[in-house]
């Protein structure tokens, strides 16, 4: 599958080349020390095509995704700057988008954002001026039509050439509607989509089959989200406490079947099997590896899943 | 204290049960303290928090509501509503520093004359233990 290249994004080039893409994730620190970003980045360099830099994930104050993204790029990664609709209105968002591109950001991931109720500032006022699908439209208009939401024109050299990302969660409800919501993101102009962590492979297969049927995978690159299960405890926690995530009993039984100190290894084995299936699954263009606070395991996993070396494009 | 404390108690009694039970207790010559003033209400669903508040303002040491056994209300759920109101008001008076024990809800049937006497004794003992209403003390003064 080859498509017209719209930006300078490495991720876009890898995807357009038809190679199976790999993206990672890096959570900025809850303080201002830049070295922490560099330390997390070193596990990812050479192992991913682009790395998502989360934007105050779970509504906890962290170093901004733009700043941490630039720090990561200094280490040789390509940042995929996340932007949530929770904290900024359309004025601030467009301003930050212009600034981010000017400073060398090529990828943006548009998200609604976790509600602040979960975060460290539940007393704050949220914004939600526009939603994540509207944000996709805003960026597309800036890039392709050369205008801001106000109608203000951008000169050709001043148009942010951003590769536009979105998220999808096949495991949220109502199940039958999920693919239709993704269709809205595609209609809004999203270039690539990254999913929530996948454990329920049956449900994911059903979802992808629908997306392929509807022609969505012809228009947008779908990346499958992978988070290896570190332990039986984590698997149970994800199953019972994270809304929109289902962990099948077969995985839980596999983790139960091995000694406690071997569970991480088994979790990685499961993840590698999933990755193998994604490589063969119609419509899946790559994987999104979310190893939150487990970044140092990325080199092992990409090696075991035969995802390295990454293509130079 | 020179005089012995005789609690003043107001009982809001449903005509279908507690009030008849009180009658029966009387005709059975059962002994119970005479410091209870019974107020006849058509159903404990008629009980309103303001009635209890007014009783306290007027110097009552304790107030209770006596209705039919749960599931036997003549008006289906009047006694359940009364129970909710009593629970609500217990919390409210507690917030202003008044003991919630001064307010109670009881359920009995018309045929339970002895139970009526028992309730009066039980509640009087509770109020004697809790002591005179602080509102009454200042009312007299």
């Amino acid at each position: 599958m080859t498509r017209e290249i719209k930006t300078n994004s490495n991720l876009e080039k890898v995807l357009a080349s038809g190679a199976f893409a790999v993206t990672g994730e890096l959570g900025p620190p809850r303080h201002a020390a830049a070295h922490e970003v560099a330390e997390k980045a070193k596990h990812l360099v050479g192992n991913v095509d682009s790395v998502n830099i989360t934007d105050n994930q779970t509504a906890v104050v962290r170093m901004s995704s733009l700043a941490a993204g630039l720090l990561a790029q200094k280490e040789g990664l390509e940042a995929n700057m996340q932007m949530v609709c929770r904290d900024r209105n359309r004025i601030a968002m467009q301003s930050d988008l212009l600034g981010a591109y000017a400073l060398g950001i090529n990828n943006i991931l548009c998200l609604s954002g976790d509600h602040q109720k979960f975060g460290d500032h539940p007393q704050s006022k949220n914004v939600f001026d526009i939603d994540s699908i509207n944000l996709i439209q805003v960026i597309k208009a800036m890039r392709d039509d050369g205008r801001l939401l106000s109608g203000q024109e951008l000169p050709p050299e001043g148009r942010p050439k951003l590769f536009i990302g979105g998220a999808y969660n096949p495991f949220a409800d109502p199940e039958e509607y999920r693919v239709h919501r993704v269709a809205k993101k595609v209609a809004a102009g999203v270039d690539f989509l990254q999913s929530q962590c996948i454990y329920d492979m049956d449900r994911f297969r059903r979802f992808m089959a629908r997306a392929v049927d509807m022609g969505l995978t012809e228009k947008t690159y779908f990346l499958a989200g992978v988070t290896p299960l570190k332990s039986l405890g984590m698997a149970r926690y994800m199953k019972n406490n994270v809304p929109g995530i289902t962990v099948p009993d077969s995985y839980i039984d596999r983790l139960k079947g091995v000694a406690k100190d071997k569970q991480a290894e088994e979790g990685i084995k499961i993840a590698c099997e999933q990755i193998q299936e994604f490589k063969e699954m119609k419509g899946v263009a790559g994987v999104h590896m979310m190893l939150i606070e487990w970044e140092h395991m990325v080199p092992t996993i990409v090696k075991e899943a035969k995802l390295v070396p990454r293509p130079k494009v | 204290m020179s005089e012995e404390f005789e609690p003043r108690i107001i009982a809001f009694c449903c005509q279908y049960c507690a009030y008849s039970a009180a009658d029966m207790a009387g005709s059975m010559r059962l002994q119970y303290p005479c410091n209870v003033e019974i107020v006849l209400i058509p159903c404990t669903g008629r009980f309103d928090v303001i009635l209890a508040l007014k009783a306290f303002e007027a110097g009552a040491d304790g107030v209770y509501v006596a209705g039919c056994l749960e599931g036997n209300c003549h008006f289906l759920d009047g006694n359940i509503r009364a129970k909710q109101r009593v629970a609500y008001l217990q919390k409210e008076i507690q917030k202003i520093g008044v003991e919630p024990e001064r307010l109670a809800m009881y359920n009995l049937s018309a045929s339970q004359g002895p139970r009526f006497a028992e309730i009066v004794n039980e509640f009087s003992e509770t109020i004697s233990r809790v002591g005179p209403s602080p509102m009454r003390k200042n009312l007299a003064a």
Partner: protein
Amino acid sequence: MIIAERKPIDEIKGFIEGKKKVLLVGCRGCVTVCNAGGTKEVGILASLLRLDAQKEGRELTVDEFTLERQCDPEYVEELVEHVEKRYEAILSMACSVGPQFITRRYPKEKVYPSLNTCFIGGALAHGIWAEHCQACGNCVIHNFGGMCPISRCSKSLLNGPCGGSSGGVCEISKEVECIWHLIATKVMEENRLDDFAPVQPIKDWTSSRDGGPRKIVREELVK
């Protein structure tokens, strides 16, 4: 209607601390219907305040009066003779419009809000109220199966449901229904997925509070 609830008694006690004569003013509008500030609730609060003072042997007069509405000057005018009795505090038991209208009419009085004004909503059942409107000033519920995502979605999404919708409830709490689950389910049941496919456009918030405090002038009604 406007849904309100009474402030905690301690906060109200704080308003009248050291005062000996206060007036409690109820409202027969929305707050009567939602059992927060009608004649009955005025009676209960007045009684609680009196009991509290009586208990401590403190002198306190609490007078009670309920107006037809506190959001109309002609009714607020009815307080004139009460205000002449020189109260040290006037506690309004209306939504926050009430104490503001009383303050405007009687600027020298010390007026306090005894209710917290919560939201625009309706009664799901006796004793249960839920938010249904955010007064954005440009109603679009017909586009969403007759349901308002602006007030009823935690993130006011126009293109939901988000990835946190699980089993019909919102990610913020199992007590909060996901309105987008209901909207999407209705669209699918009615076989209207095609009509519903277009992206809902970006909302213009100028008619909402974001456009500044709002005012409506109806020329044909103004004298």
